[in-house]
C-alpha cells in the first residue's frame, strides 16, 4: 500500500519540477553563430573545443603581450573575436554584453561567469583606426 505521505510527496515533486521539464530544450545556452570560419578545419582560430575551454587564457596572454610589448597579432585579439562573433540582430543592431544575444554573455550568463573586459573594451565591432602615414 502506498502511504498518503508518499503520494503527496511524489505529486509535489512532479509539480515542482514540471517547469524544468517543460524548458528542457532551453537548458543549454544558444550561442550566436560566427560570421566566418577563421580556419576551415578547426572552425575557429583554434579547435573549437580548445577555444571553449581555454579562450580566457589565450586572451589573457595576448592582453599582456599587446599591452606591455606592443605585439599586435590578430589571432588571439579580443577585437577580432568581437568582430567575428558579435552579430547584428534583425533590426540591424549589435547586442550588448549582458544580453543573451551577445556572443560572450550568451554563455557567460548561463555559466554565471563575471568578467570585466567590457568595462573598458567595446563589446561591439567597430571600424578600426586608420593608421597614419609613415614619417620618420
Amino acid at each position, binding site marked *: 500500500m502506498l502511504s498518503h505521505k508518499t503520494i503527496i510527496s511524489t505529486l509535489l515533486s512532479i509539480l515542482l519540477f514540471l517547469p524544468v521539464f517543460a524548458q528542457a530544450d532551453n537548458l543549454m545556452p544558444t550561442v550566436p553563430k560566427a560570421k566566418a570560419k577563421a580556419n576551415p578545419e578547426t572552425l575557429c582560430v583554434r579547435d573549437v573545443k580548445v577555444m571553449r575551454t581555454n579562450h580566457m587564457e589565450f586572451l589573457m596572454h595576448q*592582453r599582456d*603581450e599587446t*599591452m*606591455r*610589448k*606592443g*605585439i*599586435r*597579432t*590578430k589571432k588571439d585579439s579580443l*577585437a577580432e573575436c568581437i568582430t567575428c562573433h558579435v552579430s547584428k540582430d534583425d533590426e540591424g543592431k549589435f547586442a550588448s554584453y549582458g544580453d543573451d544575444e551577445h556572443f560572450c554573455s550568451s554563455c557567460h550568463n548561463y555559466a554565471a561567469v563575471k568578467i*570585466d573586459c567590457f*568595462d*573598458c*573594451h*567595446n563589446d561591439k565591432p*567597430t571600424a*578600426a*583606426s586608420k*593608421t*597614419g*602615414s*609613415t*614619417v*620618420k
Partner: protein
Amino acid sequence: MTQPVNTNETKTDLYRRQFLGKTAAAAGFALAPGMLLTEIAHAKPADEAVSTKNRWGLLINTNKCASGCTACVTACQVENGWGEINKSEELSRASQKAVWIRKVKLKDKQTGHVQSLPLLCQHCEKPPCVDVCPTGASFKREDGIVLVDKHICIGCRYCMMACPYKARSFIHETIKNQKVHAPRGKGTVESCTMCAHRVDNDGIPACVEACNAEGHQAMYFGDLKDSNSVISKELAKNGGQQLRADLDLNTGVRYQGIK
C-alpha cells in the same frame, strides 16, 4: 635652456647592463648610426616586441603652434574616443572629464609675450607615475612610451598625485562606445598613449598628423635614439627644452621656443 636628450640611461638599460655585464653597453655603443637606420626603416612585424632600440619622442615648436588652433586636441579625441567625441562621459562635471591633451596659452609676466602650446603626457624616462603606482599598472614600455595597464589599475590615483604635468585623468563614470585600440573604463586612470597602436604599425600619433595637415608643422614625432631621424636632427640643431627640467625626468616630449 637646453638639455641633451639622454637616451642611454633607461632603467631597463641599466638592468640589462647589470645583467649582461659590460658587453651590452659596448654593443650599444658599437652600433653604427647607419645600422640603426636600416633597422627601423622597416615596419615592426606585428609579432615583434617593442625594444629599447627605439625611444619615441615628440618635439613641439611653440613658435609654429598657432594660437586658437585645437587641431591636435580634436584629432586625439577622434582617434581615442574621449571628450566631445564620446557621448557617454556625460554625467561627469567639466573638471571630472578626461583630458589627454590640452592647449594652454601663456603670457610672459615680464615681456608680455604670448604663446600657445599643447600639453600632454611627457612620457618621462623616469616617470614618477610609474614609481609610485602600487600595482605596476603604470608602466613604461621598452621604447619609452608610458601607459596605464587598465587591467590591473585599482584606481587609487596616486599616479595622478605624482605626475608633475597633470597629464592623467581618472574616469568618473561608465564609458561606452570606446575605440577598439583605446579601451577606457570607469574607475581607472588614463593618459596620452603616444598613439602606441599607430606607432606599433609604423605610424605617427594622430595629433602630429593633424598638426601637419593644418599646415602648422609644429610637432615632430620620431626616434630619439636614431640620430638620423628628423626629430633628433632638429633637436641637435635647435635644442629642445623639458618642462620642469629641474625634476630631472628626461622627458620624451620636448619644447622649443618657450621664452
